């Protein structure tokens, strides 16, 4: 094996090892438990299974479409517009993403009681507009606007210039974001459960029901297989779309490309502001609830944050839960960054390599890294219970289990954010540097690092936020001594009494505040001198 080959293999150990130990093995073990009883084939051929699959894919596709349509103007606003307040909007747009699904589900129910499937799609899109907005903006801000200006100078309309110059260049980011959103929506659990009442069911809610309640592991295994197949199909479609669009781009810094909108661009800005306004509606409703009581306004909920809730609902105070959230998310993010960046570099190297085999490996690994987003948190959680005791020290009892599970969700997002940027670096820059005598290490330091630093920091920020808001696996694995904020909120809302309820909504406000603070700090890092040139 050549030196680069060895290097790549070493790089592959970390992501692949992590994926095998913390994903493939536990999920495989649970599926195997379902298979030993037989009957998986019967469950697969039931009409009910396919109705569930159809509804799952349809609602996820609808939600993704809505999130992309609503997210594009937001991306434009964040990437290309120089107006006061855009910085705040960069932060605000991420806030919905961390809210516990139970809270958002209840907020949408309060606004629209019998919304049915339409409210499921709206709520899913509500969560994911940020994914589209920030992912696409990340690339858009770096895109050289001169090609578009040239098209305009040659007489193309704004729309035409966008469609034939900018949009194709943005496609890798759009499809990346859409793939992630699709997976989030396909496995969306709390929203479907609450807004679907008992009428609308998806593969995810049914897997949960069969595993957690009925202990029908055979039925759950069959549904999990369908879920994995659907997710793989979606990933392959996404990969095919990305492959066609791939090209090297000239990346610039945002300072050169952002400017005041003019003429018809104000329409797009207006659309973006409308989307942001809609995103804020449930949030405002939620803040209102945190200060309203049966007879007027009160800050009791906020004061209660320093307590453990009415009659010891929690084992720790709201503040301590917030601290736990920060700690857990830090661990998860550090872990996910190391693994995600290693995986991105590896994937790009594999795709650039001349061999067909290497390229095929790259494609498979890309899909494998995304898969955890599309597999039920219940499956992974129960998988941990039946496997991880085999690791030294019975990892099932370790406080690190939560960050490990969260990292599984964050890694795909890191890869999807970093990869498009690493890919779009013009290889000729590297060749030029090498021709001028730079060592491979120096090429990496002078070309790759500065060009990707922003994307890497942005990925870390986004990953951090995802970890802060992660609920599915966290609620399953968190220990009551160290609940995260979303887990604490769900516990508070599950108890009677006005104070618990108010405290739950106050804790939501705290979670949003913590998120906004984290995003501001990280965005500040990203917009510092690092990475700009």
């Amino acid at each position, binding site marked *: 094996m050549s030196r680069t080959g060895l290097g790549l293999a070493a790089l592959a150990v970390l992501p692949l090892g992590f994926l095998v130990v913390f994903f493939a093995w536990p999920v495989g073990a649970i599926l195997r*438990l379902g298979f030993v009883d037989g009957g998986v084939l019967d469950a697969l051929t039931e009409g009910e299974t396919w109705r569930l699959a159809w509804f799952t894919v349809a609602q996820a596709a609808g939600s993704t479409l809505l999130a992309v349509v609503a997210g594009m103007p937001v991306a434009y606003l964040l990437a290309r517009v120089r107006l006061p307040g855009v910085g705040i909007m960069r932060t605000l747009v991420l806030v919905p993403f961390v809210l516990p699904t*139970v809270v958002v589900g*209840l907020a949408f*129910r*309060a606004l629209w009681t019998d919304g049915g499937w339409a409210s499921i799609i709206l709520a899913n899109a509500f969560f994911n507009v940020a994914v589209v907005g920030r992912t696409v903006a990340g690339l858009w801000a770096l895109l050289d606007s001169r090609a578009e200006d040239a098209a305009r100078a040659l007489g193309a309309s704004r729309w035409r210039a966008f469609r034939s110059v900018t949009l194709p260049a943005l496609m890798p980011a759009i499809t990346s974001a859409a793939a992630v959103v699709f997976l989030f929506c396909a496995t969306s659990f709390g929203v479907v*459960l*609450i807004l*679907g*009442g*008992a*009428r609308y069911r998806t593969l995810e*809610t049914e897997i949960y*029901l069969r*595993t*957690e*309640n*009925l*202990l*029908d592991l055979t039925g759950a295994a069959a549904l999990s297989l369908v879920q994995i197949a659907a997710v793989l199909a979606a990933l392959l479609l996404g990969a095919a779309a990305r492959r066609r669009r791939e090209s090297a781009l000239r990346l610039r810094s945002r300072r050169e490309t952002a400017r005041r909108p003019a003429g018809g661009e104000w329409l797009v800005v207006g659309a973006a502001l409308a989307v942001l306004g809609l995103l804020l509606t449930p949030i405002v409703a939620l803040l209102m609830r945190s200060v309203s009581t*049966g*007879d007027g306004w009160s800050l009791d909920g906020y004061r209660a944050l320093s307590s453990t809730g*009415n*009659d*010891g*609902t929690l*084992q720790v105070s709201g503040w301590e839960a917030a601290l736990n959230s920060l*700690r*857990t998310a*830090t*661990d998860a993010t*550090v872990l996910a960054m190391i693994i995600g960046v290693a995986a991105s570099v590896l994937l790009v190297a594999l795709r650039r390599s001349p061999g067909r085999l290497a390229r095929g490996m790259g494609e498979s690994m890309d899909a494998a890294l995304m898969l955890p987003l599309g597999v039920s948190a219940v499956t992974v959680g*129960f998988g941990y*219970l*039946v496997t991880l*005791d085999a690791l030294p020290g*019975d990892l*099932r*009892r*370790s*406080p*690190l289990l*939560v*960050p490990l599970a969260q990292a599984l969700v964050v890694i795909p997002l890191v890869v999807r954010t970093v990869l498009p940027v690493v890919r779009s670096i013009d290889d000729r820059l590297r060749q030029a540097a090498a021709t001028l005598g730079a060592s491979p290490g120096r090429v990496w330091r002078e070309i790759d690092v500065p060009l990707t630093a922003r994307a890497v920091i942005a990925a870390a920020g986004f990953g951090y936020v995802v970890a802060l808001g992660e609920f599915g696996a966290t609620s*399953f694995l968190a*220990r*009551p*001594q*160290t609940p995260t904020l979303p887990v604490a909120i769900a516990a508070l*809302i*599950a*108890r*009677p*009494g*006005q104070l618990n*309820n*108010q405290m739950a909504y106050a804790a939501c406000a705290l979670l949003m505040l913590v998120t906004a603070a984290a995003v501001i700090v990280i965005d500040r*890092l990203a917009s*510092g*001198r*690092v990475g700009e040139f």
Partner: protein
Amino acid sequence: MRFRTGVLVGLVAALTAGCTLAGNTGNNGPSTVTLVTHDSFAAPQQVLDAFKQQTGITINVVKKGDAGALTNTLVLTKANPIGDAAFGVDSTFASRALSEGVFAPYTSPEADRGPQRYAVDSEHRLSAVDLGDVCVNVDTTWFAGHGIPEPATYDDLVKPEYRDLLVVENPATSSPGLAFLLGTIARYGEQNWQSYWTQLRDNGVRAVAGWEEAYGQDFSGSSGKGPRPIVVSYASSPAAEIGDNGKPRTKALLDTCFRQVEYAGVLAGSPNAANAQKVIDFLLSQQFQATVADNMYVYPAREGVALPTSWTTAAPLPQNPASLPAETVGAGRERWIEQWRSLLGQ
């Protein structure tokens, strides 16, 4: 610029180091008993500390979802249990835990002070800790304001004057929902419960996924101030809804209750069984039993434990609740849920 970058990286690293869980290890010594329980478990820290003072045992609480999720977790991990004792397997799921051999036999010396009345198992693998009866709750203010008499029985709920007033939970996704379904089966029998539910459906019952939506959002008597004045909740819920005048705003209908008993036991295969047994004794002790009403909204299984004063008027223990034998529930649960789902068109 190099310098500033270095400072920045150093700063981030320093912040990160103080901000991690690494280094916190779980305490797994023999003096620690891991108690696996459901999400609703709550106990005052002073009582747990007092137990530690007396026995030297630290209780490490691990929560695993609701009673169903808890039971299934115990079943799936029985080869290598994740704890030493478990609390919260209820009468609905007891038969599954027993037939899967999750628990080891243990007769607590405290068990004959009342818990024995709810014994499910001749081998004494499960000890009753508390009763969490599920009853229909009504918003008394709403009924007074509308000049409609409050309903009292299951039969009342299908009468036209209570049309579109009741909200229930889906028995597939909610344990009070399941208890209410079992209550109707206990009342009307295997033969007739479906026709009762058809009448409920025709009378505009709303079925939602969980207690949070039903009680917190749709029920008019909670802080959510929803549109419906009748909800399936717990016998104890009115104790949490006491107004400024000291009177409860809601009431449980004591003729619509279904008894759910919550059990504790020593997990088979625990290397720490002797100490786990002491934890079971503790859960049945006067000391702990006196806390369950305030902390978990359930009734103590032990005799002679006083309820909080507000409970005696707002939330007395139902005297004649319905119940079904654990084996009957174990055998019928899934079939009934499926039938309920197709009946309600859901």
